[in-house]
């Protein structure tokens, strides 16, 4: 099959990628860019392990064809930390034990970050809904929900400090 060139911005870097049009954004990330943090759990958009941000919105990258990423801004788990400084959600997941085997973690973090961008004070219920498309087989979710709560409080406190 003829290959095509996709122009896409991934974690702040512009990329020009050669791929077959039937391949997915998940394939582009993992195979072309070696960004293996994004995982394939089911390949059918049901488990959320492959969640990334496209133009700031969370999507299952296994359901996005590579050409659909043309001209878009993609953020993966590798792009959450800035200058080697972890995002508050990442720190909270570590400290609160919001991870075990780690496969759902990248997608879970992306969904959490997307939530906190649109809702700085989410209720427990809105956290649960925001990650309801991200399956975790290990934790029972409670520590994940706590971690997102902790992160939202810290981010709010940090924002308060910054505004003074």
């Amino acid at each position, binding site marked *: 099959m003829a290959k095509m060139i996709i122009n896409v911005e991934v974690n702040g870097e512009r990329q020009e990628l050669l791929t077959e049009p039937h391949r997915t954004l998940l394939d582009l990330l993992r195979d072309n860019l070696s960004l293996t943090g994004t995982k394939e759990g089911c390949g059918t958009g049901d488990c959320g392990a492959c969640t990334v941000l496209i133009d700031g919105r969370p999507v299952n990258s296994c359901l996005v064809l590579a050409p659909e990423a043309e001209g878009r801004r993609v953020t993966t788990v590798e792009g959450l930390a800035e200058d080697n400084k972890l995002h508050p959600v990442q720190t909270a997941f*570590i400290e609160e034990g919001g*991870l075990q*085997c780690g496969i759902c*973690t*990248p997608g879970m*973090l992306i969904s959490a970050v997307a939530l906190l961008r649109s809702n700085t004070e989410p209720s427990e219920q809105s956290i*649960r809904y925001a990650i309801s498309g991200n399956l975790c*087989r290990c934790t029972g979710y409670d520590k994940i929900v706590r971690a997102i709560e902790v992160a939202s409080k810290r981010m709010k406190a940090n924002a308060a400090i910054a505004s003074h």
Partner: protein
Amino acid sequence: MTRVVGRPTPHESARLHVTGQARYTDDLPLPPGALHGWPVTSPHAHARVVAIAVSEATTIPGVVTILTREDVPGENNSGPLRHDEPLFLGAGDVATYHGQAIAWVLGTSVEAARQGAGRVVVTYEKLDAILDPADAIRLGSVHTDPQWIRRGDVDVELVGAGEAGHAIVSGEFRMGAQDHFPLETHVSVALADEDGRMMVHSSTQHPSETQAIVAHALGLSLNDVVVQCVRMGGGFGGKETQANAWAAVAAIGAWKTGRAVKVRLDRDRHMILTGKRHPFLARYRVVVSRSGDLCGLDLELYADGGWSLDLSDAVLGRAMFHADNGYFFPVMRVRGQVLKTHKTSQTAFRGFGGPQGVAVAEEIIDCAARAIGMDPHDVRTRNLYRGSGETNTTHYGQEIGDNRLAIIWEGVQDSGEFVSRREAIRAANDLGGGMRRGIAVTPVKFGISFTTTFLNQAGALVLIYSDGSVQVNHGGTEMGQGLQVKMAQVAAEVLGVPLASIRMMPTRTDKVPNTSATAASSGSDLNGGAVRDACLTLRGRLAPVAAQLLTAHGAPAVHADDVDFGDGQVSVRSRPDQRVAFASVVRAAYLARVGLSSTGYYRTPGIWFDKASGRGKPFHYYACGAAIAEVEVDGFTGQMRVLRVDILHDVGSSLNPLVDTGQVEGGFIQGMGWVTMEEVVWGIDGRLLTHAPSTYKIPASTDVPGDWRVTLLPRAAQPGVIYGSKAVGEPPLMLGLCVREAIRDAVASFAPRGSHPERVGLALPATGEAILDAIDAVRG
């Protein structure tokens, strides 16, 4: 001195996980020319292979070769105990489940291999398939002879029941399968060494067995094959034996082509090809007094093993050991047998038959209680193991040794306000209406040790480098359960160094040989013992060196027994401010030509079991807990919500409370999933209908209890286990069974006003559909 064990330390790879840097087998960079495998699978549950034609497949661009039976240089089998699992089928062989691999296509891409597999033409002669366990019993389709455990003579009890005024309650009970659904599917990468030997990266809970299966398939010795598992993305028992076949296929491919070969099952193939938690069928007769004392139990347990034996006999054995759950049956007879059906080969799954045994016990209690008009809760309380001697001894003759179960039973009800909540629920339900609530508490008593005694051993290899940094190897594998951080804590504690000085190494068969699977909740107990042993040996060698360094010029010599290791220092016990850095001691030891690496070894003491008599002490100790669930059931739709859960669980002196509460929570939800929503369905032709998350529902974040209170039993140090800790992997799964009993409590309230149903039949899993059926039955 700062203790390292017992602290809520994050998972060893936590930072790698949150940054996406943690590498799993699927993430390993492949060398140029690597090939990918895709299986040609049987479209019949039972059929003879007549012929295989591969020529068309070779025309697909990117297809390199097709692996068939004739390509196996050694033994064409991956059966772990009984050699009954052919890797490839050829003409004349018989496919024994729908989805069984016949041949494997290797291609330069997954797509090429998949397209090639679609062009391999296999012709079959269809045979009759046995799918239902009842049919298997009727037709005598079995994998094993029966196992027995007996206490007293249940026949005497059954015959005398009428005269004694007791009731005999009998029934048949089925439990469904459960898919492990680790978020990481099975994956192996095989690389041929320069001399035809083999390196295999595998997502396996049992690298030593994977090594053995690969070696046998290639006709090599064990020392020719190295298996490495860095980490798994979840195991839950599903990768204890069932990772082996894919590693063997990859190795055979690498052997044939000389190229690296990766075999990764996508989610659907993972679910279609690999085994699950055993469905069970139980038949029972229980003798119960009118006041609710359990007098005798006659139980038949049938494990639906699927097409091959795998570990089914041991799974069945553990179910038989746990068919008492936490209850004293003075007279008991358990007969167990593994059935052979044309389905996936059912395998280890967290609890390993224990959950099925526990579920049977709870089913029997509920049915016995309702039959005599008692509240099941009162029958549970009345028959809990208690005291000492006979009433605190299991049906296989092991004395439980303490009364933690009774303490936990009372404790969780007190803290969980069980009595007052139950009264409130009863009052609310008495008002009628479509929404009803239910509440139940169930106990768990889970035996810790492999029931196959020789497996209870472990090895370690600890290396100290001349700068004082440490590498730790052991036989256990990391699947998310936090074994590596616990082992790092043990090593740091013994050597008295900070956690940052310890590096945990990937599990490899060339570091520690002949390891047991990381299974049976025993990873920390066994490997912790071995790591500690190795570190103690090294500390013993370093102590005299430190003593010499700590002996002041002209002062009396410090003795090696009088030094302490802690906080990265070695100090004189009586004068803690007189100390020297651990790294300086190591450097001095190196210069003094003291060996700085050591193996360690551990075997569990005092356990035995005689299968012929069904008696023994198979377990080192028991891990206990209890949980209360409160649920709400919608009488019109069958929909159920878990409103609140209270858990009190015994992990001994926790090595790591952050990890252990995570295990308790995750285990509970997995158990709840099994008994409420996870329904594995095989079609009438034996095809697995639930082979993806679109059709198979595991709990999501919105399914877990809104109000959830988890407490670890305080002051609970367990004698004779690493730092007083207890195993935690499996036992909490069975706590989840209280959700089903709470649903049953809610369902019972739909009976006509003023009446108590004599039986509340509820399927396992208690799906919305099953709940509606149960409500219809009690409404009459």
